[in-house]
């Protein structure tokens, strides 16, 4: 039983989004880079399932995110070196599928592919489904917990009518929402070990196709709805009023 977990280097969150000068991407010089919270959970699940390989499609800097996943317990890493800004969801799905197929052909193969529900920057929600279609595998989206037993994967999470659990045969694709597992931080020995893992570098199998991006636009700043109720003890009556309006308190 081996798992492939797919991650993407994205700009970390901050309350004000900063764009690059060419408006083609979010600028990470202030906030730094990370993988999305969904992917952190996918990595955590993959590590808990055991024998996890991490992969990404990204530029040279994306090695940082591969090493971060290695530091928390992934044992191998594949890097499709490409400019992620020019690769749409269909392109990315194709490249992941190529990695999965090549792995099968070389005798390894992955039983389960985990992805984040959607990337923190582009938010396309597409790669998981397109990948499953490409591979002809079953897929379930937006779950928070994953377990494997007897050749079946059980994937569960919140649905419109309550908690839903799906069982599907392996091999399968699952996209993960944050909230079900607590991603671990790296340990010092983990980080040291991650530094020494050789990363399998690949080039994309095809040029990106399909729609491209013109530019990003920032929405107008949201007006502040912060209201200062007062300071110190004097503010207490106003706070009580608010809590009453919210139905937290009743007089």
């Amino acid at each position, binding site marked *: 039983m081996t798992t492939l977990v797919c991650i993407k280097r994205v700009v*970390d*969150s*901050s*309350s*004000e989004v*900063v764009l690059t000068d060419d408006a083609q991407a979010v600028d*990470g*010089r*202030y*906030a*730094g*880079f990370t993988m999305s919270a969904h992917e952190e959970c996918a990595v955590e699940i993959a590590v808990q399932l055991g024998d996890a390989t991490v992969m990404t499609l990204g530029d040279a800097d994306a090695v*940082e995110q591969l*090493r*971060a996943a290695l530091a928390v317990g992934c044992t191998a890493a594949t890097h499709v070196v490409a400019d992620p800004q020019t690769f749409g969801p269909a392109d990315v799905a194709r490249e992941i599928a190529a990695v999965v197929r090549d792995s099968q052909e070389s005798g390894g193969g992955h039983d389960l592919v985990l992805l984040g529900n959607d990337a923190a920057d582009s938010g396309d929600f597409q790669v998981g489904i397109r990948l499953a279609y490409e591979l002809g595998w079953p897929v379930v989206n937006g779950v928070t917990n994953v377990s494997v037993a007897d050749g079946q994967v059980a994937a569960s999470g919140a649905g419109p009518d309550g908690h839903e659990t799906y069982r599907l045969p392996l091999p399968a694709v699952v996209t993960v929402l944050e909230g079900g597992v607590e991603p*671990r*931080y*790296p*340990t*010092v*020995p983990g*980080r*040291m070990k991650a*530094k020494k893992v050789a990363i399998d570098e690949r080039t994309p199998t095809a040029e990106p196709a399909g729609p491209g991006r013109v530019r990003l636009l920032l929405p107008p700043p949201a007006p502040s709805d912060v209201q*200062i109720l007062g*300071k110190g003890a004097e503010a207490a009556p106003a706070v009580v009023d608010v809590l009453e309006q919210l139905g937290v308190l009743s007089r």
Partner: protein
Amino acid sequence: MATVPASAKVVVIGAGIVGNSLVHHLARLGWRDLVQIDKGPLPNPGGSTGHASNFIFPVDHSREITDLTLDSMRQYKEMGVFTESGGFEIARTEERMEELRRRMSSAKAWGIEAELVEPAFVKEKVPFIEEDQFIGAFWTPSVGVVDSLRAGTIMRDGAVESGALTTVPNVEVLGLDVEDGRIRRVRTDQGDIETEYVVIACGVWSPKIGDMAGVSIPLTPAVHQMISVGPCPQLSEREGEISFPIVRDMDTFCYERQHGADMEVGSYAHRAILHEPEEIPSIEQAKLSPTEMPFTSDDFDPQLEQAYELMPELLGAEGAEMRYAINGLLSLTCDGSPILGESHVAGLWTASAVWIKEGPGVGRAVAEWMVNGHSEIDVSHSDIARFHPHQLRREHTRLRTTESFIKTYGIVHPAEQYESDRDQRLAPMHESQQKLGAVFFETGGWERPHWYESNAGLLEQYGDAVMPREHEWDARWWSPIINAEHLRMREAAGVIDLSAFEVFDIEGPGALDAVQVTCVAQCDVPVGKVIYTPVLDPKGGFKSDLTVMRLGDDHFRVVTGAAHGPADRQWFAAHVPAGTTLTNRTDDVVTIGLWGPRARDILASLTSADVSDAGFGFLTCREIAVGDVTVLASRISYVGELGWELYVAADDAAGLWDTLLDAGAAYGAVPVGIGVYGTTGRIEKGYRAFGYELDAERSIVEAGMQRPKVKAADFVGKEAYLAQRESSPAAVLCTLVVDDHTSASGVKRYMLGGEPVLTRDGGTLTDGHGHHPYVTTAGSAPSLGKHLLLAYLPPAEAVIGNELAVSYMEELYPVTVGSVDATALLDPSNERIR
């Protein structure tokens, strides 16, 4: 919620440890109508204070920094936010052990308890450390951690409650208005504040704010990486924030500091990562805070391995994870000192580039300086006025801090020279000096020959009289050629490049008043007289010592050292009345010294002027023709020899230099470097130097420089000086002779300065200030065949013939008091100068 007032006496920009401490002390000293603003929220506005590691090791080689640190520790303790943990600085190499022995010298000199210990001693207190990784340690029991945010809140709230202060957070400064050279107004996004004073105390943002008033605050935001690993079971089983001593792993440039259940590992080993103040993110743009930048793990990885080797059981403990990792921003300067004091814009003050360990002490010192005109702790090495123009360039700060960052925990020789951004100021005769094999040291950007390899041939002539040094450390940044040049100067003559002198002219109807009020010595003298004088601050401490020449009824020329020149110039400028001018002549006037028993013969061979003692008396100056060049000759000496300082237009300087060397050769004259001028020449004569023997904590009386009379005219510090003369001094500056240099290993050792002076059997001495004596200057006295030390001793010990000891690298060497006032050991009756 407070709002931005329309007017204030003082506006303090910044609510980190410095700004908070400053408003507290200003209020304590009685100032009212204080306003403090910060762009961020309280209590943590997002500056460097908010992410500081908050630990304090008190021992530093610098007295000024140590005093500020000790004062800060005292204040933190008073506020109840100090936790004593003890701290180790561990050595992995023998070279580092030697450095730790040198650190013991500083600890003893500053009176801080410390000892060198074996690895087993460390292991007992820090059980998770690997003993085989290091060979010894420097143990300081008084090391501790503070809560700097809490301290800031206590101080700020105290000032608010006393009614002296209004603090308004979340206010952005948009501009500083300067009118007629004086700060008038702070413009903010919430209204303008009319004000008498502004203090820029906003750490890494200070340069950006300073630029708004045209004031360069030369610091750079720089990254200090830090991670936090936990929970570690070894730590979590104990109560409180810290229960194990802090470990500084000096040779890997990192530290391990317990913080509750976590171990913080900080590093100064990575490449220097510098930012521009304008490029620091806003609170909204940052993930954590503006000064907690994204961690770049590649830079830290080598440190991680070294830290792991030192504490594998702790850092590799089950469940211990790297929970927090930042590239924290802090402030660095080109010389490592803070930036304090009033800028060239009147009323606009700075208190920047200050670390947690100095914060409250700096707050007190700057507040005293603002309110009283001087501070109890001398902070002249941190004076913003110290910077020369080339040091105000951002490029200079960037290059120097890049070079020095790695030396944060480095072994830095006291004479060590920077390599970057050199050759900023070259004497006109620089090319000639290069041909002579000059070894250049830098002062104030000037490249000054320290000695000349062309004089190496003298070594053979003088043999052991050049006092060669066997130990590499003692001989580093030094050459026996210095002593050979010295001997030749005393035997024949030396030609010394003094281009670096800071020279400024005060001209106009108020010129006499300007020098009279700043100088202790009588300046109302006939035209053509040269005056050597102390310059005091209002409390009677030294601002400077320098020479003044009266060139006309309304024309005085002030000549001072390069290192402190800009600060002296700013001090005089502040006392020049309207209608009188101060003109900086440093770059267009070059000074060349000619001294030695043959100096008169050499000068006479080049001029028709009467240079006999009768025709050109000591402490007089006048213009004469030397060859075809007009020079202002001044008969004075800092090396105790007959001779002149020759002031010449920069364009004529290279020619004059060659002329003097050519003509001098026949009389045995050689070019002589600053090694002689700055140390050996003066120490034999007991001449004091500003920044060594003389500083704001020393008085004329203690320095043994009082004259029989005090001039009638008023001058800054007069009242204090008169009082000093009436009471007996708390310490007395003495010259000590080292009696025996032989160390336990048989190698002869030579002190370099900074060492503690003890009783003959190693007992502590304490002067009337409660300070312990230390060596202010150490150097060869080749004409005496001795190594001399200058030190302020308790008056009871200041007795000629008194037998004491100096501690050097943890060994005692016998010394004897040779002189207890300014009397020179060489030529005490000054025959040679005549």
